[in-house]
């Protein structure tokens, strides 16, 4: 009798903990959502671009897994170009973000110009490497 009773209490405690963690998780997601909604639109566009680039990279990796990696340089250049544009977009986001105190006096035009230059070099190299 007694062990069964104890066992039941343990299960109850675990359920409560699980519920609290799940409710915690829900609260977390909600607060993340609200905080994220506060970001200005141009940053959200950049984030969307980053997500798109990463998704493309994942698709390429899956494709390589299916088909095999024969022209390895093409695979490498494709994946790295996606990752590269994602990284550069994140850098742009860092520089354009008005809340970022370190880049207060950096005009956004300069940030965009740098971003374009970097992308140019990146894609030049990619074209060369595609083979």
């Amino acid at each position, binding site marked *: 009798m007694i062990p069964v009773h104890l066992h039941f209490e343990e299960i109850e405690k675990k359920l409560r903990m699980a519920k609290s963690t799940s409710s915690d998780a829900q609260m*977390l997601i909600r607060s993340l959502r609200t*905080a994220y909604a506060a970001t200005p639109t141009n940053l959200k566009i950049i984030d969307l671009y980053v997500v798109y680039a990463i998704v493309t990279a994942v698709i390429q990796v899956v494709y390589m897994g299916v088909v095999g990696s024969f022209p390895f340089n093409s695979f*490498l250049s494709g994946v790295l170009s996606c990752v590269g544009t994602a*990284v550069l977009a994140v*850098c742009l986001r860092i520089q354009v973000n008005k809340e970022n105190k370190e880049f207060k006096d950096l005009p956004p035009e300069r940030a965009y110009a*740098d*971003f374009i230059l970097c992308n140019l070099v990146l894609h030049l*190299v990619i074209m060369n490497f595609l083979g």
Partner: protein
Amino acid sequence: MWWLLNSLNIPLSVETVCVFTAPIFSANAAWATYLLTKEVKGTGAGLTAAALLAMVPSYISRSVAGSYDNEAVAIFALILTFYFYVKTLNSGSLFYATLNALSYFYMVCSWGGYTFIINLIPMHVLLCIVTGRYSSRLYIAYAPLVVLGTLLASLVPVVGFNTVMTSEHFSSFLVFVIIHMVALVYYIKGILSPKMFKVAMTLAVTIGLTVCCAVIAIFIASVASSPTKGWSGRSLSLLDPTYASKYIPIIASVSEHQPPTWPLYFVDINVLAFLVPAGIIACFSPLSDASSFMILYLAISAYFSGVMVRLMLVLAPAACVMSGIALSEAFDVFTRSIKFQAGDINSESSIAQNDVSNVDSNATTDKSETVSKEPSRKNHEKEKEQEIVKKVTSKSQNGKKLLVLPQEVSAVVILLLIALGGFYVGHCVWTTATAYSAPAIVLKSYTPDGLRVFDDFREAYAWLQHNTDVDDKVASWWDYGYQITAMANRTVIVDNNTWNNTHIATVGAAVSSPEKAAWEIFNSLDVKYVLVVFGGLVGYPSDDIDKFIWMVRIAGGVFPHIREQDYLRDGRYHIDAHATPTMLNCLMYKLSYYRFVETEAEGFDKVRRTEIGNKKFELTHFEEAFTTEHWMVRIYKLKLPKNRIQGKLKNKSSSETYSSNQTRARNTRRNPWQ
């Protein structure tokens, strides 16, 4: 560059361009050092560091006019890459990040030592993250470099896919992942309230840990399956200094790959050797990202320079930058106190506070100078130190730590510092003139009867060029390959650029075998002449018998029938009466000491300082073609095989029977390797 100059209608021959490339790039390197140090500390330090690098013997040894080696360019690229990295770190602009990646690409093109960069920068990023100095500028400095750098490095054919396959680059990818995680953490921390953040952390840690363990397990399994765990031979020999001597004798045999001796540090970077610790402390006083990078660079390169002499070259820029910082800080302190004294006494506690921060570097510099100067000055220095201490304690009561050095003391110390610089310059000039400038082809020695010039190498190469056919192939040890190709204009079997180990091992096997076997090996390689360098008559220490150890080892690595034990007696190489029979019969011994008894030395080898073991012997398969004046270079011709057809055909090296002999030799040639 020659093409560029020619298109600008400046007529220069290719040789001139080759000769002057190295000094031009070393000038560029001094400029790059100025830029780098300016980013770390300021313009004063930059100028000092550039001046130091312009003269440091270690770098000069690689960038002498006429030495067309890639390391002069490589060090320039290295310093430039580091400059752009530090500049991006300080300014956070993507433009410099792009330039960083491009100069990294230049580095990859020029030297295999680029792996140093691609491992040092991730380590520095990790250090910054761990010490809590993460900032978005760090991300901008590092992440584009990894992506662009990997791509650009893959473009270079030598590297190719090694960028993603070998373990040398894995640290950059690992830190890439880590920096993304850290960036994410900081971002989420920024947009969440602290309570929520705690919850997020616990969730993330539990999930992340399990995923991490799985990934790491897979990774370790895949890496452990390869025999060297994915590291290349070069990197392994750096990490484990004894690796090369055990497994790859050819890497171990290069004299530049031996560990340096202590005096070599002083020869190569002289005064900088003890200014460097002062510089390290000066870097700590305002510890910024850039100065932590310099400290890390110095520490790592100091470790690696202890492994290989060749890597002293990588230490040199770091040492120059650090000492430049130290020297300029020291100058700052003293000139400021002179100005202070000359100006208003009541004012400018701000200057004094700067002086306080330099007390440490000051004291250390004083201590180091004490060590270097004569003991008569020791009392003076100690007095000064006591004065400094007294002044600190007396003025600290004010709360403002004013530090004022009396004018005379500062003036004397400045003069001493300048004298230090003078010593450095003098040493550099002397080293460059004696040690690194002498062309290795023409040797000179100062005997009691005056200057004696040994022009044997050029004599031998000229003989080769004039007395042999254009198609004749010459076999020698790979050290002389380039010289023979350039000066004698004959094809060689192996030269300094041969990376095929079996090739060199074949030549090594040939000279370690008895005459008949050696003849067969050389015949199969279509060799006509064998060139041997012998220093026993005049005492030239680095001849082929001296290098014989390595020939045996390298050959033994590929051909198991050559055992090093066969040539050793009691674990040492002998060429005298104690030598083993294998040694006395091998080709190198015979070719070096043939007819040696007929000289005035009568069989006494001046280098090994013993009489040779086997004095009188005849060569059956080779004949002596030429020996130079001081017996330093000896050329032998392969005897053609005896004609089996009719009678005895006397083998002559004269030209009239040469062509007929050659056709018959071709018919009777056997290839023992098939």
